[in-house]
């Protein structure tokens, strides 16, 4: 994989692009080139300007200064249809598929006219072309399945297929792998390589180092709207990239932790819900971090939900502080000291229109009231304390959570959960889609909590995270527990072996 610099003409060139929103500069004269068949990773913390840069290339935003040149032509602000016709395609972080339509219909959405005049002909052609595409890319999906019946990861693959079928010359991907597990990432890698061989250029953002280094030919780092570096992959190291992203030396990405295992506080015996998972058994000690490894869709999330009272187990038992318990609702679990941070932050984590303050106190309002009347002074004190402790970047306790970045939203969720003083925390993908700095802070927080004797169940698809943060790792595959491994005695390969078993 050579890193092209001279000779070839770039597909896309950014010249001195600057953008400001209401006088706040977002991008400072960015120069960037993309060559045919190049896979270009754009990295940076949340708020560094990656999304704005992508939108500028796409043509949704026009730059205040400088120009974007695509195939030798200056790009103007365009409608989505024009953008598609120009040969640029974007895969958003939020999926843009229509759940009630089939895979084939989604892939050809908005381009039905290419499939012929008659509806039945269109349907047949869509099926045929999708089948061809699927077999071409070796993706095990059925073209007639409705999208609502697919997992998030499979939907993501459909999005990518759509971009491929549009025969785009340039594909922009905003965190394309954030919801993919190892297995799907392999499929993803295959797709990327296929595109590369066809000369398609790809610009993608990611927070995962293994992908940034695994896929890309070139890595560009953005920080606070400045392009810090743009180098061939071979010329950079992980350490260097992280350092460039955060702007300071990060000696240890994962905090050092002295494990002090206390007594057993949670025992799970033969836990099962038909169709989701079965025969799950483990002990959780005080101060221990137990990792749940496995592929996306293996049932890890459902096990977490069952312990946190979101799902009712059909068999087995949960023994909590030497008593068999069955939680009917999250409320029951919270009362018993179980905290839960969902993988689906938007849907289950917070109330978007509520302020930081109201979100943080939401699970513990009963301690901020008398006779049902709220003690708002106390509420504010609590919220301010969490903002300081968790380093939540905001305009104050009154800012609406929907206006915060992903990392800060996650910290608000942590604030809410910590405020109801749980003894066990179930963290489902706690660092998904958040920036490096916030990730580091969450790891530090986890280490501190375990030092205080709190137990943590960490469900994570990020192998380095799982390996470094957990004391023990329970591997789940297809709803069954396939291994219970000690951190010291295992390695990523072994975990993957059991995950695919």
């Amino acid at each position, binding site marked *: 994989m050579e890193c092209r610099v001279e000779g070839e003409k770039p597909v896309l060139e950014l010249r001195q692009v600057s953008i400001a929103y209401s006088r706040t500069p977002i991008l400072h004269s960015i120069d960037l080139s993309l060559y045919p068949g190049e896979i270009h990773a754009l990295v940076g913390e949340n708020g560094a300007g990656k999304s704005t840069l992508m939108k500028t290339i796409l043509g949704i935003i026009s730059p205040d200064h400088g120009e974007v040149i695509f195939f030798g032509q200056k790009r103007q602000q365009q409608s989505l249809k024009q953008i598609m016709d120009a040969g640029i395609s974007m895969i958003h972080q939020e999926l843009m598929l229509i759940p009630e339509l089939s895979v084939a219909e989604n892939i050809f959405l908005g381009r039905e006219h290419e499939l012929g005049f008659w509806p039945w002909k269109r349907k047949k052609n869509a099926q045929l072309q999708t089948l061809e595409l699927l077999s071409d890319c070796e993706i095990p999906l059925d073209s007639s399945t409705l999208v609502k019946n697919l997992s998030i990861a499979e939907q993501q693959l459909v999005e990518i297929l759509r971009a491929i079928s549009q025969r785009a010359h340039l594909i922009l991907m905003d965190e394309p792998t954030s919801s993919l597990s190892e297995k799907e990432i392999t499929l993803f890698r295959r797709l990327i390589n296929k595109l590369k061989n066809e000369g398609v250029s790809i610009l993608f953002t990611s927070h995962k180092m293994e992908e940034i280094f695994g896929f890309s030919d070139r890595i560009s780092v953005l920080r606070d709207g400045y392009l810090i570096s743009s180098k061939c992959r071979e010329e950079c190291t992980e350490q260097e990239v992280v350092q460039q992203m955060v702007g300071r030396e990060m000696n240890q990405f994962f905090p050092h932790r002295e494990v002090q295992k206390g007594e057993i506080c949670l025992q799970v015996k033969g836990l099962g819900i038909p169709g989701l998972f079965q025969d799950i058994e483990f002990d959780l000690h005080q101060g221990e971090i137990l990792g749940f490894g496995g592929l996306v869709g293996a049932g890890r999330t459902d096990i977490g939900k069952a312990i946190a009272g979101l799902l009712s187990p059909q068999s087995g038992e949960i023994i909590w502080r030497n008593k068999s318990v069955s939680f009917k*609702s999250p409320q029951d679990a919270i009362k018993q000291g179980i905290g839960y941070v969902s993988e689906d932050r938007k849907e289950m984590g917070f109330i978007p229109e509520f302020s930081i303050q109201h979100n943080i106190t939401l699970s513990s309002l009963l301690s901020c009231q008398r006779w049902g*009347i709220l003690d708002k002074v106390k509420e504010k004190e609590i919220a301010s304390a969490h903002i300081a402790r968790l380093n939540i970047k905001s305009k104050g306790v009154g800012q609406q959570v929907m206006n915060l970045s992903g990392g800060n939203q996650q910290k608000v969720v942590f604030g809410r959960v910590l405020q109801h003083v749980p003894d066990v925390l179930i963290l489902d993908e706690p660092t998904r889609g958040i920036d490096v700095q916030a990730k580091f802070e969450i790891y530090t927080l986890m280490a501190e909590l375990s030092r205080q004797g709190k137990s943590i169940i960490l469900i994570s698809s990020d192998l380095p995270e799982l390996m470094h943060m957990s004391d023990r790792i329970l591997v789940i595959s297809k709803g069954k527990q396939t291994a219970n491994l000690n951190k010291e005695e295992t390695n990523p390969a072994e975990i993957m072996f059991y995950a695919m078993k």
Partner: protein
Amino acid sequence: MNLKKILIGSQSGGIFLALILMCVLISSLTPRFLTDTNLLVILNQVSVNAILAFGVTFVIISGGIDLSLGSMLAVAGVVAALFAKSDGGNVYLALLMALGVGALMGAMNGFTVILSKVPPFIVTLGTMTIARGAALIISSGRPVSDLSESFNYLGNGDLVGIPIPILFLVGTYVVCHFVLTQTVFGRYVTAIGGNETAAWVAGIPVAKVKWWVYTLSGIFAALGGILLSARINTGQPNAGLGFELDAIAAVIIGGTSTRGGKGSMTGTLLGVLFIGVINNGLDLLNVSAYWQQVVMGGIIILAVVLDSVYQKMKR
């Protein structure tokens, strides 16, 4: 200056401005508008709609809807009248029974919405018809008259010169505003409307809160029914036809989001007054009752459109 804060700082700024403009417009067209008597008439006229609207504001903020208000009002009004006959009736028993019946119907709405997971629009649409039928059955389809003096007083009497219905309007506003903004219950209702799943995961007893919201709506509808029966001194099984739409219109004009999660009692109060002022103005200007409806609908749409433009401008 406080006025600036009201206009720009709060959700209800747009509707407040619209109400003032409407008052200025009408009083420039007729001198009979801006008089003490007329203003009291307006407040008295809107009191029933206001009470329904306060109740349904909770429902709408929680992300639901209640279409059965008018019918529940009729049932409660008839029940109150039956227990408040001039021969041997008891006003206190009448109040208790009417409120109890309202609470019961609201509670049934709540149960059905929670247990069946059928959208509240459908559930309360059903209740609307059922309750209307119940009102006709209880009264055998005839108005219930010959009501006691003390019951009549509730609708037509006054205390230190202020009509009783207006006192109820003010009282319910104060209580509802306090409950919505200062209590755990109010916070829970808003949270559920904002993101029901997240509220549940955060440990809020969602089902219980929703049940209470519909029950409250029934109680407020019953209170409206009592006041209306008392005012016309008759329990009318056909009373309150379409009242739910006036109440919901007032809530929406007041800036409460139909998707839930956002809203205020002050907004609802202003919405109610806005509708009341327009009705009164059209009456004073001798506009025919048919045209009043057309004008009313147009103004409601205009108000909501202007408000959304105004909210965008503020950002």
